[in-house]
């Protein structure tokens, strides 16, 4: 080995080595004019097959790749308007919908969008029976009957049979969900293996007719979308959309401020405040469908007492938390259907009142020093909320221990009814109040063996007597006014006597460059529209 023998030589070697750290290339340029670049934590994306995807990132991408029969268009997110459906007609008994498709639509492959594609897509979702399939299976469809229930009459006419007792409005809302996306039958079948209806292929390929086609998806790295020139509303202004996987919010902020990305999706409210004064960047907020709630296991001898459950309504420092730890991230909301959606109740009768809570506990005969556990997620702001509730409980004589877990540990425990008190979150699966009524007010079989784990009522061992029937009635009501009335009633009943203390509704925040216009980020994850963006 030939080492330098003098200190001069040594210093030169060190200087040479240090020069490795000296910049060799200029920093990256601004994003191209026709490309919308987003920084986002995409670690949740598992698949881009609409029949299977049930995650936020996947939902957003699918909403831009695929069309549905009915869509909440960016112009008015509270109103369901036609997607690829040109018109629809219900039969008198509300059991049959005849849908006429818009003419001249094509898939990315160039194939025309036909009624056969619609029938195939809905049937495919039901037959594959992945997690989100339950949404359209509520219409009464099964793998056996779906081919008969959804039929192509001719190239542009689809006949849809409603096999469950269900309100027409609810059916349309269900058909607007991500799982009801219309895929290109010919393209998908061309890639099918062993009759899997393209399941293996569609995970990371696209076969839609939406504004963008999937160019590439590198998990945990980036997703690249390319504009579709024959899109229903014409070619989108942004020729490309790039979603970069950046897990760390501080790094997202730096990228946004430097102009390397046009939008950063996971900025905290603190970071957004830090952007004030920077004219190049704008902070944005929008209502999210997520609710944060406390639930008590009804198998617990003390927590199941009505007065104890009522007392919990008064130990939450709603205003205090919204003004401090939840500042800009959550607002007070005490009903199971989030505000900003049709039929959402806005009453918020409960406030922080420890005297009242203590009196209720005394009436219930709860002894001072009673011990309970609080399960929650091991991340902000759940742990802070849990600490706040713990302190309040302590003041009224209940000692509590907080158990923090990540979701993959917490949810199985919750599904196994092994919690005592839990602070958790819930968001709607589709844009209809039945989505949350089904979770918070419906439990047809409370036995443990029934394992209705998708329902929060069952997870908390609450039989929801009376409410279950009312939820069925609301889902079946064909008169919108009647439905609205029933949901108001249901929300009041859950608010007053249930294992749930609903506390807060999430507010979504993100930052975007000030030259970005028209980016719509809706209440649910599949209401993010890239095709309206201009720069």
């Amino acid at each position, binding site marked *: 080995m030939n080492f330098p023998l003098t200190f001069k030589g040594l210093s030169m070697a060190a200087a040479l080595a240090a020069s490795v750290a000296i910049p060799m290339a*200029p920093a990256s340029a601004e994003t191209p004019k026709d490309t919308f670049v987003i920084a986002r934590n995409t*670690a949740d994306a598992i698949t881009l097959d609409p029949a299977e995807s049930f995650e936020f990132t996947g939902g957003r991408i699918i909403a831009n790749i695929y069309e549905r029969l009915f869509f909440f268009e960016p112009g008015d997110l509270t109103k369901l308007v036609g997607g690829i459906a040109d018109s629809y007609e219900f039969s008198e008994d509300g059991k049959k919908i005849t849908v006429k498709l818009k003419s001249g639509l094509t898939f990315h492959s160039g194939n025309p969008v036909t009624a056969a594609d619609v029938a195939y897509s809905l049937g495919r979702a039901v037959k594959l*029976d992945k997690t989100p399939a339950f949404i359209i299976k509520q219409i009464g469809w099964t793998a056996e009957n779906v081919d008969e229930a959804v039929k192509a009459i001719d190239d542009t006419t689809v006949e849809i049979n409603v096999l469950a007792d269900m309100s027409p409005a609810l059916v349309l809302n269900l058909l607007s969900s991500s799982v009801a996306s219309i895929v290109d039958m010919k393209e998908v079948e061309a890639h099918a293996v062993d009759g899997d209806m393209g399941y293996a292929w569609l995970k990371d390929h696209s076969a839609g007719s939406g504004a963008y086609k999937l160019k590439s998806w590198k*998990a945990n790295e980036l997703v690249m979308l390319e504009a579709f020139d024959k899109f229903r509303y014409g070619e989108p202004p942004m020729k490309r959309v790039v979603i*970069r996987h950046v897990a760390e919010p501080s790094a997202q902020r730096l990228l946004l401020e430097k102009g390397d990305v046009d939008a950063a999706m996971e900025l905290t409210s603190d970071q957004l405040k830090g952007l004030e004064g920077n004219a190049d960047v704008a902070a944005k907020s929008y209502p999210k469908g997520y609710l944060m709630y406390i639930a008590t296991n009804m198998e617990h001898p003390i927590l199941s007492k009505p007065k104890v459950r009522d007392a919990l309504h008064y130990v939450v420092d709603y205003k205090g938390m919204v003004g401090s730890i939840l500042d800009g991230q959550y607002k007070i909301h005490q009903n199971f259907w989030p505000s900003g959606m049709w039929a959402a109740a806005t009453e918020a009768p409960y406030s922080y009142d420890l005297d009242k809570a203590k009196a209720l506990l005394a009436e219930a005969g709860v002894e001072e020093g009673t011990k309970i556990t609080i399960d929650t997620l091991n991340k902000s702001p759940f742990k802070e909320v849990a600490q706040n509730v713990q302190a309040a409980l302590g003041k009224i004589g209940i000692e509590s221990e907080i158990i923090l877990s990540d979701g993959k540990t917490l949810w199985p425990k*919750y599904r196994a009814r092994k919690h005592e008190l839990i602070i958790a979150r819930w968001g709607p699966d589709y844009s209809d109040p039945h989505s949350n009524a089904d979770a918070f007010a419906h439990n047809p079989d409370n036995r443990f063996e029934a394992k209705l784990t998708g329902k929060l009522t069952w997870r908390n061992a609450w039989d929801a007597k009376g409410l279950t029937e009312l939820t069925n009635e609301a889902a079946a009501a064909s008169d919108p006014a009647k439905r609205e009335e029933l949901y108001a009633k249901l929300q009041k009943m859950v608010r007053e006597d249930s294992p749930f203390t609903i506390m807060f509704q999430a507010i979504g925040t993100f930052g975007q460059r000030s030259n970005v216009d028209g980016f719509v980020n809706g209440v649910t994850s599949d209401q993010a529209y890239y095709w309206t963006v201009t720069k």
Partner: protein
Amino acid sequence: MTDNSISQTTESQGSGPDFAPLLRTLKKIGSGLAMLILTFIGLTAVTFIIGRIMPNDPVVAIVGDRASKEVYEAMYIQLGLDKPIWEQYVIFVTNMLQGDFGNSVMTTRPVLEDIKRFFPATLELATLATLVGIIIGVPAGVMAAVRHGTIVDHIVRIIGLLGHSIPVFWLGMVSLLIFYAKLDWVAGPGRIDFFYDGIVDPVTGIILIDSAIAGEWEVFQNAVSHIILPASMLAIYSLAYIARMTRSFMLDQLNQEYVLTARVKGLKEGAVIWHHAFRNVLVQLITIIGLTYASLLEGSVLTETVFAWPGIGQYITSSLFNADMNAVIGGTLVVGVSFVGINMISDMLYRIVDPRAK
């Protein structure tokens, strides 16, 4: 020595070929392979068992927490979780031996493919950081030892201390803020700018090498601009450690009698330091450098997170959070095997550098 070796050669020529060195080498290769196999069995067994007794549920990881009982149970059976744990392990290892590490829940692709994609990114980062660590750390450590108690020594000691006590997360953010956001010297988080993505076909998976092979110098430059900061962050840690250890080994040697003898004999100071003292330190340093390199390969999770670097550290961590056990086991195995591999290489180097070890 020279005379001896000549006579040995002559002797062996006279009595036919000498198989002893060949046998020794074969024996070493054999024990190395045995070590690898043992590591494989140990790693798979431990990771598998930990994966199964962990309280998170791989089924929920796939079907989500709202799936119906039917969907849940179908996936439970599909994953083979209804079988006894030993049977699951046997199936798992059998598949693995056939090159099938299963599919990752997170990326939906075969784990082996993921590893091929994520591991080179970490390898690139860790190798560069280790090289910088050696090039700066070793001379700095030697200088500090030789100039023991002087300002040079203090500076090296302080750097060594800081390098080990400053949180990488913080340092990473600050460096991004200064060199990327304010000074505009380097590119930001990520491995390459997206508009360069896909230009170069992956040959080794290491962008710096692949772009150089392809002659795509713009891509190369962009990749360099991206890797500088994360590699420097890791390099600070490796050089701090290497410098600290070099200093301490050198101090130890410089106090030995043979150094004094050499000086008394009138040997030049440079020759005393490098030919005598450093030669003895080199053996220990190889082990230290090997360990540093191996730990960078597995332990750069935080750096990878701050710099949005798509490496194996991030892959294993997010797989753990997602209860993606195939990915966790596959990733851990690769890190474990490279650990053993690096150990074997440093062991070989050790023998080359120190003939007594033969």
